[in-house]
Protein backbone atom coordinates (compact mmCIF):
# COMPACT_ATOMS: atom_id res chain seq x y z
CA UNK A 1 0.00 0.00 0.00
CA UNK A 2 1.26 3.40 -0.92
CA UNK A 3 2.33 5.69 1.82
CA UNK A 4 -0.49 7.82 3.19
CA UNK A 5 1.66 10.49 4.70
CA UNK A 6 5.14 11.77 4.20
CA UNK A 7 6.07 11.06 7.76
CA UNK A 8 6.47 7.33 7.63
CA UNK A 9 9.74 5.75 8.59
CA UNK A 10 10.12 2.10 7.81
CA UNK A 11 11.71 0.01 10.48
CA UNK A 12 13.47 -2.69 8.56
CA UNK A 13 14.07 -5.99 10.25
CA UNK A 14 17.80 -6.31 10.14
CA UNK A 15 19.05 -9.81 9.56
CA UNK A 16 21.12 -11.13 12.37
CA UNK A 17 24.84 -10.77 12.06
CA UNK A 18 27.29 -13.46 13.01
CA UNK A 19 27.71 -12.38 16.60
CA UNK A 20 23.98 -12.28 17.10
CA UNK A 21 23.62 -15.70 15.59
CA UNK A 22 25.86 -17.09 18.27
CA UNK A 23 23.24 -16.44 20.96
CA UNK A 24 25.90 -15.90 23.54
CA UNK A 25 26.96 -12.25 23.08
CA UNK A 26 23.43 -11.01 23.53
CA UNK A 27 22.94 -13.31 26.47
CA UNK A 28 26.10 -12.05 28.10
CA UNK A 29 25.03 -8.50 27.47
CA UNK A 30 21.72 -9.15 29.10
CA UNK A 31 23.40 -10.88 31.99
CA UNK A 32 25.71 -7.93 32.45
CA UNK A 33 22.70 -5.64 32.63
CA UNK A 34 20.94 -7.73 35.22
CA UNK A 35 24.12 -8.17 37.18
CA UNK A 36 24.71 -4.44 37.36
CA UNK A 37 21.23 -4.04 38.73
CA UNK A 38 22.17 -6.12 41.74
CA UNK A 39 24.20 -3.21 42.98
CA UNK A 40 21.75 -0.50 42.15
CA UNK A 41 19.81 1.24 44.80
CA UNK A 42 16.64 -0.68 45.43
CA UNK A 43 13.49 1.04 44.34
CA UNK A 44 11.35 -0.62 46.95
CA UNK A 45 9.34 1.30 49.46
CA UNK A 46 8.77 -1.05 52.36
CA UNK A 47 5.20 -0.05 52.68
CA UNK A 48 3.99 -0.57 56.18
CA UNK A 49 7.19 0.90 57.60
CA UNK A 50 7.97 3.53 55.01
CA UNK A 51 5.21 5.49 53.43
CA UNK A 52 5.34 7.26 50.18
CA UNK A 53 3.89 10.75 50.41
CA UNK A 54 0.82 11.20 48.30
CA UNK A 55 0.25 14.24 46.23
CA UNK A 56 -1.76 17.04 47.85
CA UNK A 57 -4.57 16.39 45.43
CA UNK A 58 -4.69 12.67 46.09
CA UNK A 59 -8.16 11.23 46.10
CA UNK A 60 -8.51 9.05 49.12
CA UNK A 61 -11.04 8.74 51.90
CA UNK A 62 -13.55 11.51 52.13
CA UNK A 63 -13.76 14.05 54.89
CA UNK A 64 -16.60 16.37 55.78
CA UNK A 65 -15.44 19.84 56.48
CA UNK A 66 -16.19 22.13 59.40
CA UNK A 67 -15.65 25.82 59.43
CA UNK A 68 -13.27 27.57 61.80
CA UNK A 69 -15.83 27.53 64.54
CA UNK A 70 -16.27 23.82 64.30
CA UNK A 71 -19.63 23.84 62.57
CA UNK A 72 -20.44 21.40 59.86
CA UNK A 73 -20.50 22.88 56.41
CA UNK A 74 -22.73 20.41 54.70
CA UNK A 75 -26.25 21.54 53.95
CA UNK A 76 -27.46 18.30 52.45
CA UNK A 77 -28.05 19.82 49.05
CA UNK A 78 -27.42 16.49 47.42
CA UNK A 79 -25.18 17.64 44.62
CA UNK A 80 -22.48 15.19 45.59
CA UNK A 81 -24.94 12.34 45.48
CA UNK A 82 -26.09 13.43 42.05
CA UNK A 83 -22.56 13.71 40.79
CA UNK A 84 -21.55 10.33 42.12
CA UNK A 85 -21.37 7.87 39.23
CA UNK A 86 -21.28 4.94 41.62
CA UNK A 87 -24.27 6.06 43.68
CA UNK A 88 -22.29 5.58 46.83
CA UNK A 89 -23.51 8.57 48.80
CA UNK A 90 -26.64 8.54 50.92
CA UNK A 91 -27.85 11.49 52.83
CA UNK A 92 -30.82 12.74 54.71
CA UNK A 93 -31.29 16.39 55.33
CA UNK A 94 -32.75 17.98 58.43
CA UNK A 95 -33.66 21.48 59.51
CA UNK A 96 -31.36 23.08 61.98
CA UNK A 97 -32.92 23.94 65.27
CA UNK A 98 -31.98 27.16 66.95
CA UNK A 99 -30.11 25.39 69.67
CA UNK A 100 -27.86 23.78 67.12
CA UNK A 101 -26.33 26.82 65.59
CA UNK A 102 -22.95 25.99 67.00
CA UNK A 103 -23.10 22.65 65.25
CA UNK A 104 -24.23 23.45 61.75
CA UNK A 105 -23.34 26.39 59.63
CA UNK A 106 -26.46 26.62 57.52
CA UNK A 107 -30.13 26.17 58.17
CA UNK A 108 -30.17 22.72 56.73
CA UNK A 109 -27.76 20.01 57.61
CA UNK A 110 -27.16 16.38 56.85
CA UNK A 111 -28.75 14.31 59.56
CA UNK A 112 -27.36 11.19 58.00
CA UNK A 113 -24.46 11.12 55.63
CA UNK A 114 -23.09 7.82 54.56
CA UNK A 115 -20.58 6.85 51.94
CA UNK A 116 -20.15 3.28 50.87
CA UNK A 117 -16.43 3.08 50.30
CA UNK A 118 -16.80 -0.26 48.64
CA UNK A 119 -18.80 1.23 45.84
CA UNK A 120 -16.97 4.50 45.71
CA UNK A 121 -14.55 4.76 42.84
CA UNK A 122 -12.64 7.77 44.16
CA UNK A 123 -13.23 9.80 41.03
CA UNK A 124 -13.40 13.09 42.91
CA UNK A 125 -16.58 14.28 41.31
CA UNK A 126 -18.30 14.79 44.66
CA UNK A 127 -15.51 17.02 45.85
CA UNK A 128 -15.89 19.05 42.72
CA UNK A 129 -19.62 19.17 42.88
CA UNK A 130 -19.85 20.47 46.41
CA UNK A 131 -20.95 24.09 46.45
CA UNK A 132 -20.61 24.49 50.17
CA UNK A 133 -16.98 23.70 50.88
CA UNK A 134 -18.16 20.63 52.71
CA UNK A 135 -16.91 17.39 51.23
CA UNK A 136 -13.30 16.81 50.43
CA UNK A 137 -11.13 13.86 49.77
CA UNK A 138 -8.11 13.23 51.89
CA UNK A 139 -4.68 11.78 51.42
CA UNK A 140 -5.57 8.65 53.35
CA UNK A 141 -6.32 5.69 51.16
CA UNK A 142 -9.30 3.62 52.14
CA UNK A 143 -8.25 0.72 54.37
CA UNK A 144 -9.39 -2.79 53.74
CA UNK A 145 -11.79 -4.61 55.97
CA UNK A 146 -13.26 -8.00 56.63
CA UNK A 147 -16.92 -7.31 56.15
CA UNK A 148 -19.04 -5.24 53.89
CA UNK A 149 -20.57 -3.41 56.80
CA UNK A 150 -17.18 -2.04 57.66
CA UNK A 151 -17.19 0.09 54.58
CA UNK A 152 -20.20 2.22 55.31
CA UNK A 153 -18.60 5.38 56.57
CA UNK A 154 -21.07 7.39 58.54
CA UNK A 155 -20.95 11.07 59.23
CA UNK A 156 -19.00 10.60 62.43
CA UNK A 157 -16.25 8.85 60.63
CA UNK A 158 -16.10 11.38 57.86
CA UNK A 159 -16.16 14.62 59.79
CA UNK A 160 -12.83 16.23 60.40
CA UNK A 161 -11.82 16.78 64.02
CA UNK A 162 -13.31 19.88 65.48
CA UNK A 163 -10.72 22.65 65.16
CA UNK A 164 -12.06 24.33 68.26
CA UNK A 165 -12.36 21.68 70.93
CA UNK A 166 -10.19 19.00 69.42
CA UNK A 167 -7.30 21.08 68.28
CA UNK A 168 -4.65 18.43 68.67
CA UNK A 169 -6.37 15.87 66.50
CA UNK A 170 -7.20 18.54 64.02
CA UNK A 171 -3.54 19.41 63.72
CA UNK A 172 -2.61 15.80 63.18
CA UNK A 173 -5.24 15.50 60.51
CA UNK A 174 -3.91 18.63 58.91
CA UNK A 175 -0.52 17.03 58.87
CA UNK A 176 0.97 19.88 60.92
CA UNK A 177 2.04 17.65 63.73
CA UNK A 178 4.17 15.58 61.42
CA UNK A 179 5.75 18.63 59.95
CA UNK A 180 6.58 19.93 63.37
CA UNK A 181 8.04 16.63 64.45
CA UNK A 182 10.13 16.57 61.34
CA UNK A 183 11.45 20.05 61.96
CA UNK A 184 12.67 19.17 65.42
Amino acid at each position, binding site marked *: *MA*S*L*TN*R*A*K*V*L*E*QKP*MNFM*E*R*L*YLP*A*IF*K*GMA*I*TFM*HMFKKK*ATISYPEEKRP*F*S*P*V*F*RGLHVLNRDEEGRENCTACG*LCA*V*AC*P*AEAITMEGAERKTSEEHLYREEKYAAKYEINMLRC*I*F*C*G*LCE*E*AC*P*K*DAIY*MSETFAPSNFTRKGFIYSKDELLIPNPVNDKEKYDIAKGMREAQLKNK
Partner: protein
Amino acid sequence: MLEQGNIHLPEGSIEKQTTTLNLGPTHPATHGVFQNILEMDGERIIKAESTVGYIHRAFEKIAERRPLYQITTLTDRLNYCSSPLNNMGWHLTCEKLLGVKTPKRVDYLRVIIMELSRISDHLICNSIVGVDTGAYTGFLYVMQYRELIYEVYEEVCGSRLTTNMGRIGGFERNFSDVAFQKIEKFLAEFPGVWKEFENLFNRNRIFIERTVGTGAISAERALNYGFTGPNLRATGVDYDVRVHSPYSSYEDFDFIIPVGTTGDNNDRFQVRNEEIWQSLSIIRQAYQKVQAFKGTEADVYHADAPAYYLPAKADVYTKMEALIYHFKIVMGETEIPAGEVYQSVEGGNGELGFYLISDGGRTPYRLHFRRPCFIYYQAYSEIVKDTMLSDAIVTLSSLNLIAGEMDA
Protein backbone atom coordinates in the same frame (compact mmCIF):
# COMPACT_ATOMS: atom_id res chain seq x y z
CA MET B 1 -12.32 -47.46 4.00
CA LEU B 2 -12.78 -49.02 7.34
CA GLU B 3 -15.02 -51.96 7.92
CA GLN B 4 -16.37 -51.93 11.39
CA GLY B 5 -17.09 -55.63 11.57
CA ASN B 6 -17.08 -56.96 15.05
CA ILE B 7 -14.29 -54.70 16.16
CA HIS B 8 -15.07 -52.08 18.67
CA LEU B 9 -13.53 -48.71 18.02
CA PRO B 10 -13.01 -46.09 20.70
CA GLU B 11 -15.72 -43.50 20.52
CA GLY B 12 -15.16 -40.55 18.28
CA SER B 13 -11.72 -41.72 17.44
CA ILE B 14 -12.13 -41.95 13.74
CA GLU B 15 -12.15 -38.31 12.80
CA LYS B 16 -10.28 -36.81 15.64
CA GLN B 17 -6.59 -36.42 15.09
CA THR B 18 -6.33 -33.26 17.07
CA THR B 19 -6.72 -32.22 20.63
CA THR B 20 -8.82 -29.36 21.83
CA LEU B 21 -7.18 -27.02 24.24
CA ASN B 22 -9.06 -24.45 26.16
CA LEU B 23 -6.84 -21.42 26.57
CA GLY B 24 -8.39 -19.11 29.08
CA PRO B 25 -10.34 -17.39 30.40
CA THR B 26 -8.08 -17.61 33.42
CA HIS B 27 -4.89 -18.49 31.69
CA PRO B 28 -1.86 -16.46 32.74
CA ALA B 29 -1.04 -15.31 29.27
CA THR B 30 -4.49 -14.02 28.59
CA HIS B 31 -3.91 -11.34 31.23
CA GLY B 32 -7.50 -10.56 31.39
CA VAL B 33 -10.23 -12.66 30.20
CA PHE B 34 -10.05 -14.03 26.75
CA GLN B 35 -10.99 -17.51 25.92
CA ASN B 36 -9.58 -19.36 22.98
CA ILE B 37 -10.61 -22.82 22.09
CA LEU B 38 -7.69 -24.15 20.14
CA GLU B 39 -7.69 -27.16 17.92
CA MET B 40 -4.18 -28.42 18.22
CA ASP B 41 -2.20 -30.88 16.25
CA GLY B 42 0.65 -31.49 18.62
CA GLU B 43 1.85 -28.01 19.37
CA ARG B 44 0.53 -26.53 16.18
CA ILE B 45 -2.70 -24.64 16.20
CA ILE B 46 -5.05 -25.69 13.49
CA LYS B 47 -8.03 -23.69 14.44
CA ALA B 48 -8.72 -21.12 17.07
CA GLU B 49 -12.07 -19.92 18.20
CA SER B 50 -12.21 -16.87 20.37
CA THR B 51 -14.86 -16.11 22.89
CA VAL B 52 -15.22 -12.70 24.44
CA GLY B 53 -17.60 -11.08 26.83
CA TYR B 54 -16.17 -12.34 30.07
CA ILE B 55 -15.89 -8.81 31.27
CA HIS B 56 -18.78 -7.19 29.48
CA ARG B 57 -19.84 -4.29 31.62
CA ALA B 58 -22.42 -2.57 29.44
CA PHE B 59 -20.59 0.74 29.15
CA GLU B 60 -22.84 1.88 26.37
CA LYS B 61 -25.94 1.23 28.38
CA ILE B 62 -24.57 3.01 31.43
CA ALA B 63 -23.50 5.93 29.28
CA GLU B 64 -27.08 6.49 28.26
CA ARG B 65 -27.93 7.23 31.88
CA ARG B 66 -25.04 9.44 32.83
CA PRO B 67 -24.51 13.14 32.26
CA LEU B 68 -21.61 13.94 29.99
CA TYR B 69 -19.12 14.77 32.72
CA GLN B 70 -19.65 11.45 34.47
CA ILE B 71 -18.80 9.43 31.42
CA THR B 72 -15.09 9.93 32.04
CA THR B 73 -15.40 7.39 34.80
CA LEU B 74 -16.42 4.94 32.13
CA THR B 75 -13.82 5.89 29.55
CA ASP B 76 -11.19 5.53 32.25
CA ARG B 77 -12.00 1.89 32.42
CA LEU B 78 -11.96 1.21 28.71
CA ASN B 79 -8.29 0.90 28.07
CA TYR B 80 -7.07 1.17 31.61
CA CYS B 81 -3.44 1.17 30.60
CA SER B 82 -3.87 4.59 29.07
CA SER B 83 -6.98 5.96 30.65
CA PRO B 84 -6.12 9.68 30.34
CA LEU B 85 -5.98 9.21 26.61
CA ASN B 86 -9.51 7.88 26.58
CA ASN B 87 -10.61 10.75 28.79
CA MET B 88 -9.12 13.31 26.48
CA GLY B 89 -10.81 11.61 23.57
CA TRP B 90 -14.13 11.83 25.31
CA HIS B 91 -13.62 15.47 26.21
CA LEU B 92 -12.69 16.23 22.62
CA THR B 93 -15.91 14.58 21.55
CA CYS B 94 -17.94 16.62 23.97
CA GLU B 95 -16.16 19.79 22.96
CA LYS B 96 -16.89 19.04 19.36
CA LEU B 97 -20.57 18.58 20.16
CA LEU B 98 -20.79 21.59 22.43
CA GLY B 99 -18.65 23.81 20.26
CA VAL B 100 -16.09 24.59 22.93
CA LYS B 101 -12.78 25.88 21.66
CA THR B 102 -9.83 25.01 23.83
CA PRO B 103 -6.88 27.33 24.16
CA LYS B 104 -3.49 26.24 22.90
CA ARG B 105 -1.98 25.69 26.30
CA VAL B 106 -4.72 23.27 27.21
CA ASP B 107 -4.07 21.45 23.97
CA TYR B 108 -0.40 21.14 24.74
CA LEU B 109 -1.00 20.02 28.28
CA ARG B 110 -3.34 17.43 26.90
CA VAL B 111 -0.70 16.34 24.43
CA ILE B 112 1.75 15.85 27.26
CA ILE B 113 -0.71 13.76 29.20
CA MET B 114 -1.80 11.80 26.17
CA GLU B 115 1.72 10.97 25.12
CA LEU B 116 2.61 10.00 28.65
CA SER B 117 -0.25 7.60 28.69
CA ARG B 118 0.69 6.31 25.27
CA ILE B 119 4.11 5.57 26.66
CA SER B 120 2.65 3.78 29.65
CA ASP B 121 0.42 1.76 27.36
CA HIS B 122 3.24 0.74 25.05
CA LEU B 123 5.45 0.06 28.04
CA ILE B 124 3.04 -2.46 29.39
CA CYS B 125 2.50 -4.06 26.05
CA ASN B 126 6.14 -4.43 25.13
CA SER B 127 7.27 -5.54 28.52
CA ILE B 128 4.48 -8.09 28.61
CA VAL B 129 5.73 -9.40 25.29
CA GLY B 130 8.99 -9.84 27.15
CA VAL B 131 7.28 -11.64 29.99
CA ASP B 132 5.44 -13.94 27.66
CA THR B 133 8.62 -14.91 25.97
CA GLY B 134 9.92 -15.79 29.39
CA ALA B 135 11.99 -12.81 30.48
CA TYR B 136 10.40 -11.25 33.50
CA THR B 137 13.12 -8.91 34.62
CA GLY B 138 12.85 -6.37 31.82
CA PHE B 139 9.21 -6.00 32.71
CA LEU B 140 10.06 -4.96 36.23
CA TYR B 141 12.72 -2.54 35.04
CA VAL B 142 10.30 -0.56 32.96
CA MET B 143 7.46 -0.89 35.43
CA GLN B 144 9.53 1.21 37.82
CA TYR B 145 9.41 4.02 35.34
CA ARG B 146 5.75 3.62 34.73
CA GLU B 147 5.49 4.60 38.38
CA LEU B 148 6.98 7.95 37.38
CA ILE B 149 4.21 8.45 34.88
CA TYR B 150 1.69 7.55 37.52
CA GLU B 151 3.24 10.05 39.85
CA VAL B 152 2.68 12.71 37.26
CA TYR B 153 -0.94 11.67 36.99
CA GLU B 154 -1.26 11.68 40.72
CA GLU B 155 0.16 15.15 40.90
CA VAL B 156 -2.18 16.40 38.23
CA CYS B 157 -5.41 14.72 39.24
CA GLY B 158 -4.88 12.75 42.42
CA SER B 159 -5.25 9.28 41.08
CA ARG B 160 -2.97 6.78 39.44
CA LEU B 161 -4.73 4.57 37.03
CA THR B 162 -8.33 5.46 36.45
CA THR B 163 -7.58 9.10 36.50
CA ASN B 164 -10.80 10.87 35.66
CA MET B 165 -8.45 13.53 34.40
CA GLY B 166 -9.49 16.59 32.54
CA ARG B 167 -12.83 18.26 32.18
CA ILE B 168 -14.84 19.44 29.26
CA GLY B 169 -12.85 22.45 28.19
CA GLY B 170 -9.62 21.77 29.99
CA PHE B 171 -8.32 20.45 33.26
CA GLU B 172 -9.84 20.67 36.68
CA ARG B 173 -6.78 22.45 38.00
CA ASN B 174 -3.58 23.85 36.72
CA PHE B 175 -0.48 21.67 36.67
CA SER B 176 1.51 22.31 39.78
CA ASP B 177 5.22 22.98 39.65
CA VAL B 178 5.78 19.57 41.18
CA ALA B 179 3.97 18.03 38.28
CA PHE B 180 6.25 19.76 35.83
CA GLN B 181 9.26 18.69 37.83
CA LYS B 182 8.04 15.14 37.71
CA ILE B 183 7.59 15.34 33.97
CA GLU B 184 11.12 16.64 33.69
CA LYS B 185 12.35 13.85 35.86
CA PHE B 186 10.63 11.32 33.69
CA LEU B 187 12.03 12.85 30.54
CA ALA B 188 15.48 12.77 32.02
CA GLU B 189 15.47 9.27 33.42
CA PHE B 190 13.33 7.28 31.11
CA PRO B 191 15.41 7.19 27.89
CA GLY B 192 18.27 5.41 29.63
CA VAL B 193 16.00 2.76 30.99
CA TRP B 194 14.29 2.24 27.72
CA LYS B 195 17.65 1.89 26.03
CA GLU B 196 18.51 -0.75 28.57
CA PHE B 197 15.27 -2.57 27.89
CA GLU B 198 16.02 -2.52 24.19
CA ASN B 199 19.45 -3.93 24.91
CA LEU B 200 17.89 -6.77 26.81
CA PHE B 201 15.63 -7.78 23.99
CA ASN B 202 16.15 -6.20 20.62
CA ARG B 203 19.05 -8.15 19.30
CA ASN B 204 18.81 -11.19 21.47
CA ARG B 205 18.58 -14.11 19.12
CA ILE B 206 16.20 -16.05 21.28
CA PHE B 207 13.84 -13.10 21.30
CA ILE B 208 14.26 -12.45 17.59
CA GLU B 209 13.51 -16.04 16.78
CA ARG B 210 10.50 -16.01 19.01
CA THR B 211 9.01 -12.94 17.39
CA VAL B 212 10.18 -12.64 13.79
CA GLY B 213 7.80 -14.27 11.40
CA THR B 214 5.28 -15.22 14.03
CA GLY B 215 1.81 -13.85 14.28
CA ALA B 216 2.10 -12.00 10.99
CA ILE B 217 -0.77 -10.39 9.17
CA SER B 218 -0.63 -8.70 5.81
CA ALA B 219 -1.55 -5.08 5.25
CA GLU B 220 -4.55 -6.00 3.12
CA ARG B 221 -5.99 -8.34 5.70
CA ALA B 222 -5.26 -5.87 8.46
CA LEU B 223 -7.11 -3.11 6.65
CA ASN B 224 -9.93 -5.43 5.85
CA TYR B 225 -10.25 -6.27 9.49
CA GLY B 226 -10.15 -2.61 10.41
CA PHE B 227 -6.84 -2.62 12.20
CA THR B 228 -5.52 0.72 13.33
CA GLY B 229 -2.76 1.98 15.53
CA PRO B 230 0.55 0.22 16.04
CA ASN B 231 -0.82 -3.08 14.87
CA LEU B 232 -1.72 -1.62 11.49
CA ARG B 233 1.49 0.36 11.27
CA ALA B 234 3.46 -2.81 11.88
CA THR B 235 2.07 -4.11 8.62
CA GLY B 236 3.41 -1.07 6.79
CA VAL B 237 0.44 1.25 6.57
CA ASP B 238 1.24 4.65 7.98
CA TYR B 239 -2.20 5.51 9.23
CA ASP B 240 -2.18 7.60 12.35
CA VAL B 241 -5.14 9.60 13.57
CA ARG B 242 -2.80 12.18 15.01
CA VAL B 243 -1.62 12.97 11.48
CA HIS B 244 -4.69 12.24 9.45
CA SER B 245 -7.21 14.15 11.46
CA PRO B 246 -5.19 16.13 13.95
CA TYR B 247 -6.86 16.92 17.20
CA SER B 248 -5.65 18.84 20.20
CA SER B 249 -3.12 20.76 18.06
CA TYR B 250 -1.14 17.69 17.06
CA GLU B 251 -0.42 19.50 13.82
CA ASP B 252 2.01 21.69 15.74
CA PHE B 253 4.29 18.81 16.54
CA ASP B 254 7.01 17.23 14.57
CA PHE B 255 7.13 13.47 14.75
CA ILE B 256 7.38 10.54 12.44
CA ILE B 257 5.20 7.49 12.06
CA PRO B 258 7.22 4.32 12.41
CA VAL B 259 5.94 1.54 10.23
CA GLY B 260 6.97 -2.06 9.99
CA THR B 261 7.14 -4.31 7.00
CA THR B 262 5.70 -7.70 7.72
CA GLY B 263 3.24 -7.15 10.53
CA ASP B 264 4.68 -9.87 12.71
CA ASN B 265 5.25 -9.80 16.43
CA ASN B 266 8.68 -8.32 16.09
CA ASP B 267 7.38 -5.51 13.90
CA ARG B 268 4.71 -4.70 16.40
CA PHE B 269 7.30 -4.69 19.13
CA GLN B 270 9.62 -2.44 17.17
CA VAL B 271 6.89 -0.06 16.11
CA ARG B 272 5.82 0.39 19.70
CA ASN B 273 9.42 0.82 20.68
CA GLU B 274 9.93 3.56 18.16
CA GLU B 275 6.65 5.18 19.07
CA ILE B 276 7.85 5.51 22.61
CA TRP B 277 10.83 7.46 21.37
CA GLN B 278 8.55 9.60 19.23
CA SER B 279 6.25 10.20 22.15
CA LEU B 280 9.18 11.27 24.24
CA SER B 281 10.13 13.79 21.59
CA ILE B 282 6.55 15.05 21.39
CA ILE B 283 6.45 15.47 25.14
CA ARG B 284 9.65 17.45 25.01
CA GLN B 285 8.27 19.72 22.32
CA ALA B 286 5.00 20.16 24.13
CA TYR B 287 6.79 20.82 27.38
CA GLN B 288 8.78 23.61 25.77
CA LYS B 289 5.68 25.06 24.23
CA VAL B 290 3.90 25.02 27.56
CA GLN B 291 6.85 26.67 29.26
CA ALA B 292 6.70 29.44 26.69
CA PHE B 293 3.24 30.35 27.98
CA LYS B 294 4.52 31.02 31.43
CA GLY B 295 3.41 34.36 32.73
CA THR B 296 1.54 35.28 29.60
CA GLU B 297 -2.14 35.81 29.27
CA ALA B 298 -2.59 32.43 27.66
CA ASP B 299 -1.36 30.68 30.78
CA VAL B 300 -4.75 29.07 31.29
CA TYR B 301 -5.80 25.56 31.97
CA HIS B 302 -9.35 25.56 30.74
CA ALA B 303 -11.47 27.04 28.04
CA ASP B 304 -13.74 29.93 28.65
CA ALA B 305 -16.96 27.98 28.57
CA PRO B 306 -19.03 28.94 31.57
CA ALA B 307 -21.90 26.75 30.51
CA TYR B 308 -19.87 23.58 30.65
CA TYR B 309 -16.82 24.20 32.76
CA LEU B 310 -17.44 24.45 36.49
CA PRO B 311 -16.82 27.89 37.90
CA ALA B 312 -14.04 28.42 40.38
CA LYS B 313 -14.90 27.29 43.87
CA ALA B 314 -14.24 30.68 45.39
CA ASP B 315 -16.86 32.13 43.08
CA VAL B 316 -19.28 29.37 43.87
CA TYR B 317 -19.07 30.12 47.56
CA THR B 318 -19.59 33.81 47.08
CA LYS B 319 -21.33 34.65 43.81
CA MET B 320 -24.88 33.77 43.03
CA GLU B 321 -24.42 33.47 39.27
CA ALA B 322 -21.53 31.10 39.65
CA LEU B 323 -23.52 29.03 42.10
CA ILE B 324 -26.39 28.73 39.65
CA TYR B 325 -24.08 27.63 36.88
CA HIS B 326 -22.44 25.24 39.25
CA PHE B 327 -25.77 23.65 40.07
CA LYS B 328 -26.80 23.52 36.47
CA ILE B 329 -23.63 21.85 35.34
CA VAL B 330 -23.59 19.31 38.10
CA MET B 331 -27.22 18.47 37.61
CA GLY B 332 -26.49 18.26 33.90
CA GLU B 333 -29.02 20.85 32.95
CA THR B 334 -26.99 23.12 30.79
CA GLU B 335 -28.01 23.31 27.19
CA ILE B 336 -26.66 20.51 25.13
CA PRO B 337 -27.16 20.68 21.37
CA ALA B 338 -28.69 17.74 19.57
CA GLY B 339 -26.53 16.14 16.96
CA GLU B 340 -24.28 13.33 16.03
CA VAL B 341 -20.56 13.44 16.52
CA TYR B 342 -17.85 11.05 15.70
CA GLN B 343 -14.48 11.88 17.16
CA SER B 344 -11.52 9.61 17.24
CA VAL B 345 -8.16 9.80 18.89
CA GLU B 346 -5.10 7.71 18.44
CA GLY B 347 -5.48 5.57 21.50
CA GLY B 348 -2.83 3.44 23.04
CA ASN B 349 -3.61 0.65 20.67
CA GLY B 350 -5.40 2.21 17.76
CA GLU B 351 -8.14 4.49 16.70
CA LEU B 352 -10.40 4.98 19.65
CA GLY B 353 -13.62 6.43 18.35
CA PHE B 354 -16.55 7.95 20.15
CA TYR B 355 -19.83 8.04 18.31
CA LEU B 356 -22.12 10.25 20.30
CA ILE B 357 -25.76 10.87 19.47
CA SER B 358 -27.28 13.59 21.54
CA ASP B 359 -30.94 14.46 21.53
CA GLY B 360 -30.38 17.56 23.57
CA GLY B 361 -31.03 15.77 26.82
CA ARG B 362 -28.91 15.58 29.90
CA THR B 363 -27.38 12.28 28.90
CA PRO B 364 -26.24 10.96 25.55
CA TYR B 365 -29.00 9.35 23.57
CA ARG B 366 -26.54 6.80 22.36
CA LEU B 367 -22.84 6.53 22.86
CA HIS B 368 -20.84 3.98 21.00
CA PHE B 369 -17.17 3.35 21.52
CA ARG B 370 -15.11 2.15 18.62
CA ARG B 371 -12.80 -0.10 20.56
CA PRO B 372 -9.70 -1.11 18.62
CA CYS B 373 -9.10 -4.22 20.72
CA PHE B 374 -12.48 -5.57 19.85
CA ILE B 375 -11.50 -5.37 16.23
CA TYR B 376 -8.04 -6.84 16.63
CA TYR B 377 -9.18 -9.80 18.53
CA GLN B 378 -11.42 -11.13 15.82
CA ALA B 379 -8.37 -11.40 13.60
CA TYR B 380 -6.61 -13.40 16.27
CA SER B 381 -7.90 -16.75 15.16
CA GLU B 382 -6.72 -16.02 11.65
CA ILE B 383 -3.32 -14.82 12.81
CA VAL B 384 -2.52 -17.75 15.03
CA LYS B 385 -3.64 -20.37 12.62
CA ASP B 386 -0.76 -22.70 11.82
CA THR B 387 1.52 -21.32 14.46
CA MET B 388 2.78 -22.92 17.61
CA LEU B 389 1.12 -22.56 20.96
CA SER B 390 3.95 -20.41 22.26
CA ASP B 391 3.61 -18.08 19.29
CA ALA B 392 -0.06 -17.71 19.92
CA ILE B 393 0.69 -16.47 23.38
CA VAL B 394 3.27 -13.97 22.25
CA THR B 395 0.88 -12.83 19.55
CA LEU B 396 -1.83 -12.33 22.10
CA SER B 397 0.34 -10.02 24.12
CA SER B 398 1.89 -8.20 21.19
CA LEU B 399 -1.53 -7.33 19.81
CA ASN B 400 -1.98 -5.50 23.10
CA LEU B 401 -5.46 -6.68 23.78
CA ILE B 402 -7.03 -5.01 26.76
CA ALA B 403 -10.01 -6.88 28.03
CA GLY B 404 -11.76 -3.89 29.50
CA GLU B 405 -11.73 -2.14 26.19
CA MET B 406 -12.60 -5.15 24.17
CA ASP B 407 -15.73 -6.17 25.97
CA ALA B 408 -16.72 -2.67 26.98
